[in-house]
């Protein structure tokens, strides 16, 4: 899933500094699952903002709504009624950055602000801990690496790791970061494929990645 985290509240406070009434939108998709933009977090952020503004003596009115997903236009349409019948100064989105962009696209005349930082594509290690597992390079080759992704998980995206900074199974950039190449080594070793690791992996074709320009995916069979 897409993993995101709330922006520092100080930053959000600055965004809304001039507003008196905003619509705060959550998303029931990935950000609910990663506990950053579901209904609960929407409530918490709304309350925190209201406290901050009450403290300053200028209250802010915040309406809360949590959409099924902000990355589907049909759901974003659900904002029409509230936006039409209220004079919001802005819409705040607690979705991955797709959300605010969809809202902006659909409601051309209203200011839209993101409240989350979209961090990575990853998964939960345990409740409350998420890690990056994929960089969306567009051509998955992890089967060559013991089903572990060196692109996303090696600090230097090495294809022929581990580099000299690998120590005790950890990456040189932080003792909390696993050296994925160490993991690859262990897994390949367990699978009896160490010899494969002795081969030089040649240049990766990055055209399928973001480097090839904004991507679009079309399924002709599905397209209406």
């Amino acid at each position, binding site marked *: 899933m897409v993993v995101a985290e709330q922006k520092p509240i100080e930053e959000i406070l600055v965004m809304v500094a001039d507003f008196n009434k905003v619509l705060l939108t959550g998303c029931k998709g990935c950000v609910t699952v990663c506990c950053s933009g579901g209904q609960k977090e929407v409530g918490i952020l709304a309350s925190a903002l209201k406290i901050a503004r009450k403290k300053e003596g200028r209250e802010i009115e915040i309406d809360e709504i949590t959409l099924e997903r902000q990355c589907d236009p049909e759901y974003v349409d659900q904002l029409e009624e509230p936006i039409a019948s209220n004079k919001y100064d802005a819409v705040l989105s607690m979705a991955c950055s797709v959300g605010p962009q969809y809202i902006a696209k659909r409601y051309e005349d209203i200011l839209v602000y993101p409240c989350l930082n979209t961090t990575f594509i990853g998964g939960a290690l345990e409740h409350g801990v998420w890690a990056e597992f994929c960089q969306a390079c567009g051509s998955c080759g992890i089967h060559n690496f013991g089903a572990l992704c060196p692109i996303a998980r090696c600090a230097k995206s090495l294809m022929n790791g581990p580099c000299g900074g690998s120590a005790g199974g950890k990456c040189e950039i932080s003792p909390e970061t696993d050296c994925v190449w160490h993991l690859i080594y262990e897994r390949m070793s367990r699978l009896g494929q160490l010899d494969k690791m002795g081969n030089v992996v040649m*240049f990766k074709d990055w055209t399928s990645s973001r480097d090839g320009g904004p991507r679009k995916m079309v399924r002709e069979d599905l397209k209406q």
Partner: protein
Amino acid sequence: MKAGSKLEKVFAAGHFAVTGELGPPRGADAHHIHEKAEYLKGMVESVNVTDNQTAVVRMASMAVCRLLLDMGIEPNLQMVCRDRNRLAIQADLLGASALGIKNVLCLSGDHQKFGDHPQAKNVFDIDSIQLIAVLKKMRDEGKLINDHECEGIPQYFIGAAVNPFADPFEFRVTRLKKKIDAGVDFIQTQCIYNMEKFHTYMQQAYDQGLTEKCYVMAGITPLKSVGMARYMQKFVPGLDVPEEYIERLKGVDKKKQGDEGIKIAIEQIQEMKETKGIAGVHVMAIEWEERVEEIVSGAGLLPRPEVS
């Protein structure tokens, strides 16, 4: 001869080679380069010029290499994959060749997290082993990565670095072999302190016949003080400073610790000379270039042989 550099020739003649290292300045002032390089002149076959070492912005390696050439010193161009994509790398390599640079050391590059621009976007389009392959392809096939033929084929003596102490230790020799497979001609190792472990590593490399396929130079960095030794022991990943050296430094007066460090370096070099498969030493006297002579001569490696 691959490129016919002095370093290559010294190796070819069967001499125990010595290389030095020089960090470019963090500015446009070339004055200090001359000063530092003077200390190394005649002491070493070739001087490595670091490339934004530790991810700190410095004068371009290639420019400094050219300055050294002007001083009559043979440079060894260090090139990292962090800051350039394959286009820039190949362009630079072509340019380097045109400038007369023959030795190139292929590196991944330190992560920018530790440097002076941690906010930078890193590139890592290709990695260090692939870089070796790029050089080899350009030199041996006269082709770029995309198989386009070069107009004018560059000549390189291709180097790479290895860290025998990084984990998993068992994989280190394999990785050396990968570099050889990719086309490396010579290897400079990370600073060596744990001699025992290094011997184990070298023994394996030797047994696998790898030292026959490339020249391996042992990395030597003299310890200036107990503080430096401790720092390297604790904070530099992949460095293994045994406690005995620290004890040894502690055993002498603080002002004399530097001298003791030099002594250790000399002893190490002497040991390296006796080690099977070691073809030379790479003396990395970081910001201590003035004492390289002391080390090299102490190790009985002066005068440097003349080759042509």
